[in-house]
């Protein structure tokens, strides 16, 4: 068990499960007094971190900092674009 905790693949998998659960739970907060745009932004941020985990741990980009950083920046820009599109009707 301790070996699994120290293993980057298993930790990545656990992180993905936790982030997925967190985003599903966050979606339940709509209408519970928390501003909807904040919940939407949180869900998109969690999706970004999940995608980064898959790129770095499963696809092995953690071993190549140049590409890991590059993919992270492009993905971050894309998620920011999605956030803008999501927020437009809420203005």
């Amino acid at each position: 068990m301790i070996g699994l905790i120290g293993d980057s693949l298993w930790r990545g998998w656990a992180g993905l499960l936790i982030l997925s659960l967190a985003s599903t739970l966050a979606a339940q907060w709509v209408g519970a007094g928390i501003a909807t745009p904040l919940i939407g932004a949180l869900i998109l941020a969690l999706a970004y971190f999940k995608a980064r985990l898959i790129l770095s741990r499963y696809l092995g980009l953690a071993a190549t900092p140049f590409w890991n950083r590059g993919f992270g920046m492009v993905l971050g820009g894309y998620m920011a674009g999605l956030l803008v599109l999501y927020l437009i009707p809420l203005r």
Partner: protein
Amino acid sequence: MSEGATESRLSELPGDLMMWVLIVSELLVFGAGLAAFLAVRTTDTGGFAEAQDLLDRTAGGINTAVLVTSGLCAALAVRWRRAHRRLGARLWLGAAALLGGLFLWVKAVEYGDKIAAGIGTETHPFFTFYYLLTGFHAAHVAAGIIILGLIAWRDSLNNLETGTAFWHMVDLVWVLLFPVIYLLR
């Protein structure tokens, strides 16, 4: 950057370069689809929210857990193959494919429920995107299962690295599709 430096950078990418070209191409296609979904949503947020309430978020959440676990199995297969443990690598690939099959089964149940309720692609623009994006993704899952079978048969390390990269791309697309289509209100 000189040509040599560019080649050196490209050679740093794990696995086959052509698979990375495919991964980036697929991400662009699905990325454009998701952006179009959110752009159309700006014209009818209420209708999109009502339509989204008809989705089974639990099934979507279960499928997320299934697919990321399948991705772990595929990544472990490569690790075991690197350690020359071919049987173990094949078993991990089999587990990844089985979980992929489970994903498709849950998706089929979800589609069946929608169709039984009279919800089709023409019901609302939300469902046009829903069927288009999740259906296209499901087709990739089906293709990925075939690829996992092929690399379990022809199990060179290069084949495993390339084939499992496709599987991780399918995983990556889902972790972006699921929150945008099922969860964003």
